[in-house]
């Protein structure tokens, strides 16, 4: 292995194993940890946009239909739209493009309805049935970065927290890279456990020398 680039990857055993008993001093051992489950978004923004569109379309149509019944002229857009719809064929390019767009939008909306969303929130371990907690991934990144910065030899570090994996890239300007890597690994290992997450994150650490200037 090259001396200038050290990589280590390891996965943590699921909660309830050895790692769990090590932290039982911090957490209440009488309350069994329950799976918290994902946070589900209320989908307010797509709902508001759709509501606005439906409101505008139905309101406009209602107004115009009522106006026609009060013996006034239909608005010109409605007559031209009716002509347009009657004269365009289903196999014309604009109609096919519109149909594809509608089908695609439909798929997007169905996916939005069925998936939890809030991918930036990591569920935390649920120690009591009435308290649910979620940690933003950006907050986890900052917490872990602060921990990695405390390792001597680390000049700078970038931590990326995914939904299942933590990737840390550190630059060490002194000490042996293997030693720094081992220390960063231990520090982040402890840091991940202190995040108190529902599902354990796996960790990969890369350490290298800063680019020479």
């Amino acid at each position: 292995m090259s001396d200038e680039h050290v990589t280590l990857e390891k996965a943590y055993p699921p909660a309830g194993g050895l790692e769990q008993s090590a932290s039982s001093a911090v957490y209440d051992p009488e309350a069994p940890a329950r799976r918290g489950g994902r946070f589900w978004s209320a989908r307010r923004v797509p709902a508001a946009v759709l509501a606005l569109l439906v409101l505008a379309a139905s309101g406009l149509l209602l107004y115009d239909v009522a106006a026609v019944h009060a013996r006034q002229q239909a608005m010109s857009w409605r007559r031209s739209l009716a002509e347009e719809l009657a004269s365009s064929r289903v196999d014309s390019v604009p109609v096919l493009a519109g149909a594809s767009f509608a089908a695609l939008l439909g798929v997007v909306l169905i996916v939005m309805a069925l998936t939890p969303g809030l991918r930036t929130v990591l569920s935390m371990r649920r120690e009591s049935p009435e308290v649910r907690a979620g940690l933003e991934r950006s907050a986890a990144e900052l917490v872990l970065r602060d921990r990695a910065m405390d390792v001597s030899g680390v000049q700078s570090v970038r931590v990326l927290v995914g939904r299942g994996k933590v990737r840390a890239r550190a630059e060490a300007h002194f000490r042996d890279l293997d030693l720094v890597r081992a220390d960063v690994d231990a520090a982040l290992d402890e840091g991940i456990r202190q995040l108190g997450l529902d599902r354990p994150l796996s960790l990969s650490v890369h350490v290298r020398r800063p680019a020479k200037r």
Partner: protein
Amino acid sequence: MLRIVNRVVVGVIGLVLLVLGLGALVGGFDLPYRWGFSMPSWWPWRVGGDAVLSEQDRTRWTGEGWWWPVVFAVLALLVVLSLWWLLAQLRQHRLKEVLVETPGAEGETGPAAERSAALLRGRALERVLAADAEELPGVDRARAVLLGKRRRPRVRVGLTLAAHAEPGPEMVRLRTGALTRARTSAGLEELPAEVRLRSSKHRAERVS
């Protein structure tokens, strides 16, 4: 509740768009003819030459007596429902007050129980809870919002973590400290809480 309504309506609208889009595509590409199947006779788009909405289809029922009342009713219903749906997204059902039942109220019914209960202002409880949470060493700012019913409130808490915070232990301290105190001081049997932990951006620095 709002979450379920939103997801059901968004899903239904998505399903309608998907069916209409696919239906037009099937007709537009002449798939029934090419693949040898047939669409039902009422289906408007059976061959590529069909109009999107023909004059005949559009005015099919305009002569019937029931047509215009139904059009008006459906459109009016759509306007009202979409307006309600839109407003529901904008407002939050924040709880204004919490019913605090004093121990004497237990077992009693009727006006007596009503008299021995007190109303606690929701804002006051929110403020106390937030201030209590901000006392934690790893918490910079805290915000609490009471939701739910007067007798069964729940609380949503947002925490902004300070540098070098430990989220897991911080949550244990919040649960056993501020949340428990809020629950017991309001005399509640339970206070379900949803906590979101964020972090304020800060520079990387060493603590020596």
